[in-house]
């Protein structure tokens, strides 16, 4: 017991140190983001890397989600003779929750890990130090550009996932219920409100920010050589996913409160 006490106290100490360090990192982002140089070229390059290069995976996932979710929901609705509600059900599920959540989780895996590994590798090979000694602010060039790119691109990817998922759902509904494209989308837009779309966009901005800042933070703080790079990539994904679920729960509470007000 006597041996364990210092270990526990050290762990608690490390936890709060980590929390304080993460807070300082996020605070630094909000302080430095407003001041030049703005590195527009690098932001655009990151938007291309994060957005365009994620399209194949996002397209496939969104399309399959649309088909599978429609297929799995049909038997339950069929019991009540309510298969005509499928477009409404799918649209609400996709726009409110599935689209943002699935896109963010995929981006956390694909983009978050790549940011964590890239910056981590730059850290252990002294490339970040090389920027500093050349009087270049690495935080601005690496962290702010990547975090802004994820913050702007995740909402775009979410909209795209919503569209592709609904398209997948339409194909399934069209084959089984013979519903036309226009009828399907009329039902979709009748069942979702401005609040649904607005909250989805805001939520996606937060998810995007989380993925970017966590990836950068874990990369920036990596050490212990190549092992540290792997750990940074892994920790970026785990921490981003954990935070995304927490944010999803909080967003749900806030949106429900607004809806019921």
């Amino acid at each position: 017991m006597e041996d364990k006490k210092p270990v526990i106290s050290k762990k608690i100490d490390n936890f709060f140190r980590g929390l304080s360090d993460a807070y300082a990192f996020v605070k630094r982002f909000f302080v430095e983001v407003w001041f030049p140089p703005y590195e527009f070229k690098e932001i655009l390059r990151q938007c291309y890397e994060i957005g365009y290069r994620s399209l194949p995976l996002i397209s496939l996932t969104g399309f399959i989600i649309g088909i599978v979710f429609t297929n799995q929901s049909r038997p339950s609705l069929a019991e009540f003779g309510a298969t005509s509600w499928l477009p409404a059900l799918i649209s609400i599920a996709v726009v409110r929750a599935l689209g943002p959540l699935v896109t963010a989780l995929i981006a956390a895996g694909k983009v978050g890990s790549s940011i964590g590994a890239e910056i981590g590798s730059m850290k252990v090979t002294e490339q970040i130090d090389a920027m500093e000694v050349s009087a270049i602010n690495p935080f601005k060039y690496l962290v702010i550009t990547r975090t802004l790119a994820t913050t702007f691109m995740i909402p775009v990817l979410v909209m795209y996932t919503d569209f592709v998922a609904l398209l997948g759902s339409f194909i399934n509904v069209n084959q089984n219920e013979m519903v036309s494209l226009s009828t399907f989308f009329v039902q979709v837009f009748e069942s979702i409100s401005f609040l649904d779309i607005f909250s989805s966009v805001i939520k996606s901005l937060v998810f995007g920010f989380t993925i970017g800042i966590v990836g950068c933070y874990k990369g920036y703080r990596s050490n212990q050589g190549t092992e540290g790079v792997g750990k940074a990539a892994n920790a970026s994904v785990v921490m981003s996913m954990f935070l995304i679920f927490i944010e999803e729960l909080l967003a749900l509470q806030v949106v429900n409160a607004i809806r019921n007000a």
Partner: protein
Amino acid sequence: MRESVIEIRGLYKSFGDNDVLQGVDLDLYKGENLVVLGKSGSGKSVLIKILVRLLTQDEGSVKILGKDTANLTLRELNKLRLKIGFAFQAAALYDSMTVRENLEFPLTRNIKGLTRKEINYKVEHLLDSVGLPNTINQMPAELSGGQKKRIGVARTLILNPEIMLYDEPTAGLDPTTCIDINNLINQVREEYKTSSIVITHDLTCAKQTGDRMAVLIEGQFQATGSFEEVFEEATDPRVKSFYDYNFIKQ
């Protein structure tokens, strides 16, 4: 009296219980190549990282070109950093950029208003200087260890530094490439009129590049002077053993 470009006084640095630097005093004089020798883990790299404030000292003062680095604002520090070239041990070239972009990066971000022609001239001239004009469009991953180190030196020279800091310039290189790098260090001093600190544990590199040696043992400089004074006339057994273990006596 010789003019000091770097003055280090009473420098202390610890990492946890490990006291790396324990009251280091050192001067780098204008135009000289000073070689700092020591075993791995003796604090040589820590010392030069403190000079550019990549690390901060626990105690003591560092004056570079007359400015106390501890009292500088970030803007002042960056202005000073432009006068110091730092060649990293593993070159630290930016992986995602070509050789041209690696050289342009510090230049375009620190000197505004340069035309494309001026930038190209500087980049091409420097690559010629380090003997690698054909690597301009290559990625760092396509270069050998020696080429990377040369490009790393070229990247620091693009801002015309007054002081050069070399961190283990010959580490991990074959003997022939080591001699090329040693010649490059001497060539840089001649062409760019720099004052340099060369961190190494390679005595051949020390002998070929250094005007003055300083041997760092147990956190302090135990011997300073010319190569002959420090090693061939060494009386301190720790300095002597360093020489005996590292240098192939003829």
